[in-house]
């Protein structure tokens, strides 16, 4: 490797975002999908009282389903024509691959989450105060980082060889449960669901932050060995 890890990671993140910019899969497919999921929930649950109560949970459920799509797409781009192999055989540091790809996933998730929160506010008539807004933005940032890291890590494992792909949701969903809980609770306080105060939401951010830091570090270290057969 002749370039620094960070420079390579930046090149990879840029390239992933460029591919997305060109193909518009997230903008035209995943975001509408996620928003439609929220609409479908509204259909299926069909009761305003229940809906308002569960809106925060639904935002994060939709996020987690979408992260499965996003990750699958992120690695489909790599494996469609053997580019992941090519990248590995070009001596690219796996840490750089991990960082680059998770940054790209995180950016896309961020856009998605903003769309979802707006949808929740509009569809389920959630209210957000100023303090709640700050909490909400922080929650989205931190939760997104954690989700992007862990999804990239397991996505890499799943992309490694055929057959292993059957494992992605199985491996991923149990692991992201803490994010689902933490982010849901924090969002509930931000929305004031069930009269929960905004201040009650901040402790949950601790959990999310631990998760994000943990999986960013673990992911950077473990990505190489996991992806390499």
């Amino acid at each position, binding site marked *: *490797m*002749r370039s620094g890890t960070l420079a*390579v990671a930046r090149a990879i993140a840029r390239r992933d975002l*460029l*591919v997305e910019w060109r193909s518009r899969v997230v903008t035209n497919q995943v975001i509408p999908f996620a928003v439609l999921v929220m609409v479908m929930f509204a259909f299926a649950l069909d009761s305003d009282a229940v809906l308002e109560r569960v809106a925060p949970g639904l935002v994060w459920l939709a996020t987690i389903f979408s992260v499965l799509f996003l990750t699958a797409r992120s690695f489909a781009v790599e494996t469609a024509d053997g580019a992941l192999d090519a*990248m590995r*055989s070009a001596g*690219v540091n*796996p840490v750089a691959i991990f960082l680059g790809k998770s940054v790209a996933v995180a950016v896309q998730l961020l856009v998605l989450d903003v769309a979802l929160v707006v949808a929740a506010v509009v569809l389920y008539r959630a209210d957000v105060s100023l303090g709640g807004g700050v909490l909400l933005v922080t929650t989205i940032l931190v939760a997104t980082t954690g989700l992007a890291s862990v999804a990239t890590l397991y996505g890499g494992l799943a992309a490694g060889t055929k057959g292993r792909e059957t494992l992605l949701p199985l491996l991923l969903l149990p692991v992201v449960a803490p994010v689902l809980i933490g982010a849901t609770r924090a969002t509930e306080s931000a929305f004031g669901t069930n009269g929960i105060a905004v201040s009650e939401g901040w402790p949950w951010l601790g959990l999310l932050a631990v998760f994000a830091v943990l999986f960013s570090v673990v992911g950077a270290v473990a990505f190489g060995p996991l992806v390499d057969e």
Partner: protein
Amino acid sequence: MSGAQPIVTSAADGAATGSVVELIDAVALIGSFPALAGASLRVERGEILLLRGPNGAGKTSLLRLCAGLLPLERGSASVCGVDLATDRELVRAHVGIIGHTNGLYHDLTVAENVGFWGRLSGATSAEVHEAMQRMGLDGRLSGVRVSKLSAGQRRRTALAGLVARRAELWLLDEPHAGLDADGRDELDRVLRAAAAAGATIIVASHELERAGGLATRQVEIVAGQVRGDLR
């Protein structure tokens, strides 16, 4: 086509050290199948070696082993001074491989693809541009998305990315396939120049006249073993 013992082939004086590739009784598995079943081979710096052999013999597997993409199961193997049994990942900084697939991002343009591979290995943009020029991709095509290209144009793009990398050891799996007559000639020129500049090149191919004319030496692979030194 007879005699089951693998033959250690050597290029020059047989000095044990200094070879770019040295495989001894190497076994490599795809799943549980021994795609390489005890292959022995030595390649010296500056050689252009042609790997020949029937379909399924193990040519692709041998190239992938040397690129650190296929783990060594038994035997010993060292490439560019790196022991594949222990430090498989390290070898990748030294090699460039082009397989049956092209390793391109179909939503990016030719220039973006070649530029990306160049940037990964620290090539300057002048070097990237030169590589594209050599492969005939500097005109209108450089701004066209790979998904729009014809098969041969894609192959040229992949080769340009490899040329921009300037690896020590080039591993090429049927590089001529899909290229037109001009492309073939240009590729041969590029490979000869690289070898003259000190790179080592291993080409797996079924186009025996074309690749045979290019190679400085040939070996045959049969059933996962290197069978003969045909120099």
